[in-house]
């Protein structure tokens, strides 16, 4: 049996991204890891309930089963949200780096700008 198919790959990519979030101290790599996780979810979502030889639900074709259109519709939304998330994360990071020159998560309270 072939174990490398979309769902397994999606789960693996998700947890690889999670691992990246745990290991990397760089904020830029945090954003990249989040994107990796998200692509894992998207891969998982669009391959679930996929049957071979199904056709897109467009037109009048009757000879084969229709593919489920809902995951694709949801994932288009999720991709759009993902772009927004990445853009805002990068904006925050750029602002923070240019103003305060900090690129990594830190334990240093002074670097975080904390008083008291």
């Amino acid at each position, binding site marked *: 049996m072939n174990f490398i198919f979309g*769902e397994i790959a999606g789960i693996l990519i*998700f947890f690889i991204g*999670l691992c990246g*979030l*745990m*290991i*990397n*101290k760089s*904020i830029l790599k*945090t*954003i990249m890891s*989040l994107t990796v*996780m*998200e692509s894992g*979810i998207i891969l*998982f*979502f669009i391959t*679930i*309930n996929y049957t071979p030889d199904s056709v897109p639900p467009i037109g009048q074709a009757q000879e084969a089963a229709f593919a*489920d259109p*809902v*995951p694709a519709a*949801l994932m288009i*939304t*999720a991709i759009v*949200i993902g772009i*927004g*998330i990445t853009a*805002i*994360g990068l904006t*925050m*990071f750029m*602002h*923070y780096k240019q*103003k*305060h020159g*900090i690129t990594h*998560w*830190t*334990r240093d*309270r002074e670097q*975080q*700008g*904390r*008083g*008291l």
Partner: protein
Amino acid sequence: MLGIFVIAPILIGTIAYLIRDDWAKPLVYLFQISFVLFAINQFLTVKLSGPIIWNTGDYSDGVALSLYADPLSIFMVLMTAFIYLAFLIYAGNTEYFHSKFYFLFIVLEGLIMGLFLSSDLFNIFVFSEVSTIVVSILIMINKEKQAIYDGMIYFFVNVLGSSFLLFGAAMIYRTFGLLDLRAIHAAIPLLTDPKAMILPYAMLMVAVSNKTAVMPLFSWLPKAHGTPSAPPVISAVLSGLYIKSGVYLFIRFNQMFEPAINMQPFFFWVGFFTSILGVIMALGQRDIKLFLAYSTVSQVGLIIVGLNMGTAIAYYGAIFHIFNHALFKSTLFLSAGLIEKEYGDRNIDKIRGLLKQMPWVALAIILSVLGITGAPFFNGSISKYMIASGTDDFWITLLLNIINFGTILSYVKFSTMLFGKRIKPTYILPENFSLIAVVSMGIVTLLTGLFGANFSDYFIGFSLEIDTLEYFKKGLIYILMLLGSIAIYKGVLKRNQFLLRIGKSELTFNGIVTVMSGYFIMILLFLIVFL
């Protein structure tokens, strides 16, 4: 018609952002008042004629993306609308009330409404993701260094939480081909093997536990809610209302999985330890805002405990406590904002003599501190009484009393601000509107306590009969605990540096993510062993 709850704030917020400031402000107030009226109207409709369902595009129920209002969600909506009105009255004359601020602030109202009303996993994902963005921009609205750091931590942690939610939704869709909460609830008994729900359940629980900030996952909360440079209204809306959307989703998801999975003992203990840890961390703070943020952690823990006791009265007590906490924690945060303005300082040890310096603010603080500690006749006492009535077990009652003792102890520290000499000779009157908002919310704390039984009956839908003798006994215990905690505070804690050192401990971002993964594995193991 429920769509109005979500779309109207977003539309009005955008319009208010585009038009001139002196036109926008009346528009915002007019909108909020009519919004409250609409919420009352919908509340009465639900109360009289049952739940309302609003399906988009006229598709059949269960297939369509839908908004759903039952007594619980419409109560949350009503609470949000009313408290938002108080927030807007408070913020009206402050210097940060400019177009960028109220645009985001009102959009956030619509998103919170969306979270309360959505009956659909994907919509919940969208709303939580978008509200994460809005909240993190609100946190860093002053662009101060620490605020940006805190906002970034908040943002990334919550985006991660939402990805868990989306992945859980994907697995549920794989099993059932459904996304609607009620439809999934109906479909779960059809499963041949409940073990198929372990992974999606763990994913969804990580997402909502992260939003609720329970024990190992609360590190982002004090950073986000206690950011010094964020306006007090934002801290108040986060701590009072937004955190409740997580609790609400926790209730909904557990209801959904109820036929297959029951994790009440697990979450009972999680809630208990959240409460205790919140109190310990709160005692270790000098910053008034951080103190209140950690106190939120402990109160949310109490709510989770009440939800997972397994009896109806404790469950409704927890829902009552959601409302109470929204009320008094908002009041406390707003008062803290006024205090900071007056004294120019946030250090609890340095602020003294509030009673003489700012009598009205002191009144609001006294009312809400009595509420949060559960003094007799205040609303906190009613909800805590309901939660405590949920059990006959001696040990569980003891645990609840320990939680309440911790709350009282931490607020004894907080109340030291009230006494002492006034520092500045002149009394500068803060904005009148802010005072009105704060004091009236404090008075509502007292009123909902005095008429607690009627309130619970009418709004929460649980007819409560208070046993006078039992309530009297609880009042006596309260006074004893108050005296005890004053003694402990004066004797031991006042000069203790140890707690202050604990209070400074925190996790880095990588630590937070690691703890989150650990929590995920913990839930998985618990389910694999006990299911």
